[in-house]
């Protein structure tokens, strides 16, 4: 087997291709792969990595897929232009995934039969194991440096600036300086081998650009945790569950940095790893009842366990922030795959008539923004606020606008009656709708010696928090809760509308992590003559803009990542929209939705029902 088969003319693409690394979980590949993505970003070219990992610590297959797109497409594209096939277990599947004319990079130490390859791809072999074995004796070093060696070879093949990678290695091992030189050495082992034995660069190339700007690169869970720090959260209670654990862990990391007294070591926060999700939400509710800003982070199974408490917080009107980093359901489902399948379960969580406020961030920037805003909303509305991330946004690093904070911004603690107000004789009725917005005043325990104390309960009560099962008192209270929900419509983040350049009779509604794929799909559809107005929903209950958008269009596609069209159901139920007007575009196999999928599905349905005036395709 020659090191490179030159029979096939490989793809020629600059700053626009997908590289997929097929690795074995626990082999230490993550850090080398991440260096690869960051090096491209440092060269000014947008790159979006996605981890595809199993529910396993060591041994099972894992993939890291990097989409390089100078045009700025951050969504998942599908297919691989270059496969870095480092896992013999998944070889056949990985090789099959390479697009015709694409490239296969592999460890050529052991010869493989010709039947293991394809005739329509370019095969690039580097004897990685042989290089490692001749350089290192320690088996762990052989394993770890193999990753850096392939990174070095790829840098030569794709024309990535080695100095950029060296600089990143220096930054990564800052403080552990003695690790820098061996890593740089390994990088050059691979790079020098490629330069000496292979034709470099190949058809896929990275060229310096300035398409990244001052954007930052971070995962949504960290961004949401940072938003919680800025939003003034002091109490966090959580129970480990993929894909939400890294949110709580990031909160701890940021709190250690920003909320720990430098001299005394005292903490201006409290984090409890609870015994289960019932306890974590209970702690959040107890803390918030007592005037602290508190949150929990969980995923579907945790949300299921929290139901009873969520109903209590709704009915007793206690603020709570719940980050739901959604994964594939139902039950344990696909713990390491992405979905938007908890929408209904959160919107109507708990028994009885309940409705909750949901926020749908599209990227880490909004995870930060909504993360902070959720605490204001929870205090203002005195109710649970769900921030609906998913695995795709939560656990993958993504390029997004740099975080910004206005130092004049104040925490909105909502309607809290103070000691002074009570002393001056202000009337206090815990469930009294004084401002006709459905939001009553509350007091924190311990505020005043004689006034303002009340009994918080999950049972029915009158306006003065006295236990009452009188029908009239119950209805009065339930109606006020509805008024409060109306108020929420205008307080929650407003939907974002993006219209086609010309008039479009069809529209698409989408939310959360679907965003980058949707943006790209619009461009693909435009090429096919399909014009589409877009509405990105950022919160439930729906802002009046949503109803208006639907009314303005003949047909609406609702694009979601779940089986049942959960947001569509909410639209039909809450906005009383004729279901026939809302066509489902559903992607729910656990992988992130792609632009190609959306464009295909919409084009097929739009053209079939002939509702789109076919405009001349863009040449």
């Amino acid at each position, binding site marked *: 087997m020659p090191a490179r088969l030159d029979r096939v003319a490989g793809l020629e693409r600059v700053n626009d291709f997908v590289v997929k690394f097929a690795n074995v979980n626990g082999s230490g590949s993550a850090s080398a792969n991440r260096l690869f993505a960051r090096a491209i970003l440092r060269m000014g070219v947008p790159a979006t990595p996605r981890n595809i990992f199993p529910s396993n610590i060591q041994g099972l297959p894992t993939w890291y897929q990097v989409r390089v797109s100078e045009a700025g497409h951050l969504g998942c594209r599908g297919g691989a232009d270059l496969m870095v096939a480092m896992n013999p277990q998944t070889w056949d599947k990985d090789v099959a995934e390479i697009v015709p004319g694409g490239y296969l990079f592999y460890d050529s130490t052991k010869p493989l039969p010709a039947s293991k390859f394809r005739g329509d791809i370019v095969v690039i072999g580097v004897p990685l194991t042989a290089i490692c074995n001749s350089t290192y004796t320690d088996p762990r070093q052989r394993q770890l440096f193999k990753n850096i060696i392939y990174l070095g070879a790829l840098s030569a093949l794709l024309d990535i600036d080695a100095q950029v990678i060296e600089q990143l290695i220096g930054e990564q091992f800052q403080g552990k300086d003695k690790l820098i030189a061996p890593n740089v050495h390994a990088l050059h082992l691979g790079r020098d081998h490629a330069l000496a034995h292979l034709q470099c660069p190949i058809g896929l190339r990275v060229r310096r650009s300035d398409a990244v700007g*001052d954007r*930052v*690169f971070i995962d949504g869970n960290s961004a949401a945790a940072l938003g919680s*720090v*800025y939003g003034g959260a*002091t*109490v966090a*209670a959580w129970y480990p569950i993929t894909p939400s654990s890294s949110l709580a862990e990031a909160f701890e990391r940021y709190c250690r940095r920003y909320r720990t*007294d430098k001299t005394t070591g*005292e*903490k*201006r*926060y*409290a*984090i*409890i790893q609870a*015994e289960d999700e*019932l*306890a*974590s*939400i*209970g*702690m*959040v*509710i*107890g*803390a*918030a*009842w*007592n*005037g*602290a800003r*508190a949150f929990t982070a969980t995923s579907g199974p945790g949300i299921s366990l929290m139901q*009873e*408490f969520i109903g*209590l917080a709704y009915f007793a009107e206690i603020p709570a922030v719940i980050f739901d980093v959604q994964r594939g359901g139902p039950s344990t489902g696909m713990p390491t795959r992405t979905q938007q399948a908890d929408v209904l379960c959160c919107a109507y969580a708990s028994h009885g008539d309940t409705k909750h406020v949901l926020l749908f961030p599209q990227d880490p920037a909004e995870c930060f923004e909504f993360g902070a805003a959720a605490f204001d909303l929870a205090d203002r509305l005195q109710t649970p606020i769900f921030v609906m991330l998913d695995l795709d946004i939560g656990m993958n690093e993504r390029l997004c606008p*740099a*975080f910004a*904070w*206005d*130092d004049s911004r104040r*925490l909105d603690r909502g309607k809290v009656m103070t*000691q002074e107000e009570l*002393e001056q004789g202000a009337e206090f009725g815990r469930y009294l709708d004084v401002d006709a917005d459905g939001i009553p005043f509350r*007091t*924190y*325990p*311990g*505020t*005043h*010696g*004689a006034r303002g*104390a*009340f*009994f*918080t*309960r*999950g*049972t029915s009560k009158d306006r003065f928090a006295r*236990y009452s099962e009188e029908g009239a008192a119950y209805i009065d209270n339930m109606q006020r809760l509805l008024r409060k929900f109306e108020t929420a419509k205008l307080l929650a983040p407003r939907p974002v509308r993006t219209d086609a350049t010309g008039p479009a009779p069809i529209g698409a509604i989408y939310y959360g992590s679907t965003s980058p794929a949707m943006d790209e799909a619009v461009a693909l559809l435009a090429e096919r003559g399909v014009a589409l107005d877009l509405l990105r929903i950022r919160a439930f209950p729906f802002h009046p803009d949503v109803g208006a958008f639907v009314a303005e269009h003949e047909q609406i596609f609702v694009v979601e990542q779940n089986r049942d069209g959960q947001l569509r159901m909410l639209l039909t139920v809450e906005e009383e929209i004729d279901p026939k007007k809302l066509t489902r575009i559903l992607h729910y196999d656990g992988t992130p939705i792609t632009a190609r999928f959306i464009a295909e599905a919409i084009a097929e349905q739009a053209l079939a029902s002939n509702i789109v005036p076919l405009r001349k395709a863009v040449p």
Partner: protein
Amino acid sequence: MTYLPKPAIRHPALPVNALGLTRRDYEGSVSTLCAGCGHDSISAAIVHAAFELDLPPHRIAKLSGIGCSSKTPTYFLGKSHGFNSVHGRMPSVATGASLANRDLIYLGVSGDGDTASIGLGQFAHAMRRNVRMVYIVENNGVYGLTKGQFSATSDKGAKSKRGVTNNDEAIDLVGTALGLGASFVARGFSGDKTQLVPLIKAALQHRGAAFIDCVSPCVAFNNHPGSTKSFDFVREHNEAVNHLDFITPRTEITADYAPGAVEVVVQHDGSLLRLRKLAADYDVHDRVAAMAWLQQRQSAGEIVTGLLYVEPETVDLHGHLNTVGVPLNGLAEPELCPGSEALDRLNAGLR
């Protein structure tokens, strides 16, 4: 600064405490429990203890789960905030509340169903975390509110009023609490106020989780002959290891007992517990011995009561977390929000 409650107009003969408040100022609304229910006596003991300790009622927060026992916080300390949460989950709510404001006193009230059945997990974790709170289980060995089903503390072999036999092992909550590392463990009896009031006082001053298992007969469903949670049975088999007088630092210690029969325990805040030993060789600081003693006496059919274990210098959850000395719920923007400059620096590290 705190506003102290202004005493209501009162009968001039009613005694007042150091805050100028009468016992009435510590009461709640009228109980709706069955006449003779043990739980009402515990409410009265709580009123008594808080009054005598001169505690400002609004500095206490009452928390409970669901059950007849969990309803009682409405019947005492009417000027305190109260939280009737969900069945079996009072401990987590109390834990969160305590994290938010370390300056209030947290008084949790639960039942044996609420704690030993549905809430066993949360009870266990509140004990092992040493959340600073008083945790009283009003233990009647039965589900009162849902009309007489067995709870996890019903005796094995016990017959319900309806004639059904309980075949499951009973959970002994004091033994469980000791095993979980609780820093204050006591057992009282709702029918013995002279023993119970000092126990509650000591618990209110304890700087960690203070657990009191209080046998509290249910006159409607579990007070029949043969029930170990009946008034008669407890009176006959009550074996107190000690009698406790809670003494504030202001009170003088008068040695009117035989030497060796009284032990004075100095609490963290300087207040004193005077223990009149009834079982001469019982040591309230020896967890292992306490567990052994309990096992022995209980197998002999006795109900061991009194202060069973205490760790006066205990470190509570806040101590372990090393949280700031002031309540977290009082921190404002400057202490919480790192600001735009910090964010700019952070952004720079993310490129």
